[in-house]
């Protein structure tokens, strides 16, 4: 499942081209895009449900947007749900190993290390809270029909999952890495910083340390070279 907004000139086509190799269905909620985002989505053979909002909901009440997408996903009767953004892409191993990750009874959620590629696709950021090695993100969850799923009444920073899927599910921490391409273009940093800063202030009254670090001087930004992973020969 994916929320999109004006992604035509960004990474959406690439992300969908990858996803269609290893997911069965893609459900997209377009949050009132004004570019060719809808055309890209409709051209993807795995997109089984696409809907476009008339008004942008992300800027007014994110939880309602997420809940709307969730209700759309429930209609296609999924077994597992991948919550992914239009600028996140798994390393190629996932195409070969996704099925084995979900065909089991041991765990109900899979978390992955997310790498924020920074200024190009050659490097990822690793200082402070950007360090991808010390945190895992929950992106894949088993769906159990009939269970009540609820969302917090949060206009911003509401998270990708309903409340029932955030806590103590049996989790597997995968070593398959995810590239976040949202910071690849340096020219976007200021606009994104201002956007998140404003949302932090609305939610918390002040910008978070992480948001402030977006505009940290180069001397405080630590980068490491991204090395493409190997597909396992098994």
């Amino acid at each position, binding site marked *: 499942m994916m929320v999109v907004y004006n992604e035509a000139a960004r990474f959406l086509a690439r992300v969908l081209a990858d996803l269609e190799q290893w997911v069965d269905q893609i459900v997209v909620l377009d949050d009132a895009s004004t570019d060719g985002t809808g055309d890209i989505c409709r051209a993807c053979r795995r997109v089984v449900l696409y809907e476009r909002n008339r008004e942008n909901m992300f800027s007014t009440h994110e939880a309602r947007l997420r809940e709307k997408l969730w209700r759309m996903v429930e209609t296609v009767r999924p077994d597992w749900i991948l919550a992914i953004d239009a600028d996140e892409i798994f390393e190629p*191993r996932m195409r070969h190993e996704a099925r*084995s*990750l979900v065909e*089991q009874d*041991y*765990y109900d959620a899979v978390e992955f290390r997310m790498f924020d590629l920074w200024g190009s696709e050659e490097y990822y950021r690793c200082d402070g809270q950007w360090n991808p*090695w*010390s945190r895992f993100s929950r992106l894949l969850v088993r769906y159990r029909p009939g269970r009540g799923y609820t969302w917090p009444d949060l206009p911003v920073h509401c998270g990708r999952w309903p409340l029932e899927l955030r806590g*103590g599910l*049996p989790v*597997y*921490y995968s*070593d398959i890495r995810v590239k976040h391409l949202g910071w690849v273009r340096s020219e976007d940093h200021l606009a994104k910083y201002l956007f998140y800063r404003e949302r932090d202030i609305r939610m918390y009254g002040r910008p978070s340390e992480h948001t402030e670090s977006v505009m940290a001087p180069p001397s405080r930004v630590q980068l490491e070279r991204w*090395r*493409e*992973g*190997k597909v*396992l*020969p*098994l």
Partner: protein
Amino acid sequence: MNATATARRKLRTGPRTVGILTTNHFSPDGNRVVYGGAERYALELSRLLVDLGFRVEWWQIGTGWQRELMPGVLVRSMPAPDAPYQTLPQLNQLFNERAVAYDLAIYFVVFLAYPSAVERSIAISHGIYWDYPGFDALNPTARDREEWLRRLWIALSGPRKIVSVDTAFIQWANATWPGLAHRFEYIPNFVDLEVFAPDGPDGAATEAGRRPVRILFPRRLTGVRGLNEMARAAEILTAARDDVEFHFVGRAHDDKLEKEVLEWALAHDRIYYYWKPPHEMPRVYRAMDIVVIPSRSSEGTALSCLEAMAAGKAVVASYAGGLPNLIIHGYNGILVRPTVENLVTVLDDLASRPDVRATLGARAREVATCFSLQVWRRRWTRLLEEVLGEPLEGSGITAELAPPPPAGT
């Protein structure tokens, strides 16, 4: 059934209960679990106890959080601020206070039974853990060493029984304190022979021929497991011949090492680093040709060694801890001192000799049948009945003194 057991049975109002004290099934913050042998032992022991009708509750180091180890089995946490002489006396005492409510207590690691054990209790030795060079520096003076030994003696003296996964620990203890001999029960580790098998529906078990010879190191990434020697051997062999491939499969205890090993593997052709969920490991074993268990120390009867044997692979192991309980050198595997030179020599040789690999692997599978999960469950059940002094309903125990017949008979 003795009189005490009868009285206890009358007092019981619900299912039997067992409390198990461990150190770190989850990391102390509760956020990480590395599925090594101890963690899988914990799962199988929990499954057995649940199947026997026990309500099972685990305790470990932590800040008060609780997690599920498996459906219906909780792990609760308690603080353990100090670890003098490699013991956790405060954790022991906090647990023992709670253990009055249990029918049975299990100290999952021997030293957790220091300074005291409750009356109906069992401690488990997973092997000698003080045979690595750094341990001496932890107890650098004769007085320190004496105190550490004194505490170990107390830990071994308290529980009704000590389960040891290998004979090395029992022999050391018998030679050191002969009076404790009656407390030990040798229950070697286990393997599920149906899950870990030479052939499976995945078709992974193709022998080398048109593909490189695959060599597996299926351990968590620590020095005592021989990681560094194995990594150097992999560098040398992949440079010397283009028909070998190395797979390092397992997590580390810290993120930094996982990062370093991944970057190292990505920089070398035909060296892979990854980990897999437990249900995928049988397929990983099937896809390999040689499995290496080059532990330097702190070893019992390693589950990974048994799983490799059950999968019918040629196993190269060190003779640390209980590995010689599993491998007879030259019959069902190769035992070596795990130096880089020895590993390179034996792996180079085995990589060139598919016939030897096949013979060792077939015998390894045969020997693995003596360590089946069913045998392990029966032995544990019998021990539980002995300690509790009463039969466990539905256990279906039958005498099992002789080993099972060889495969195919």
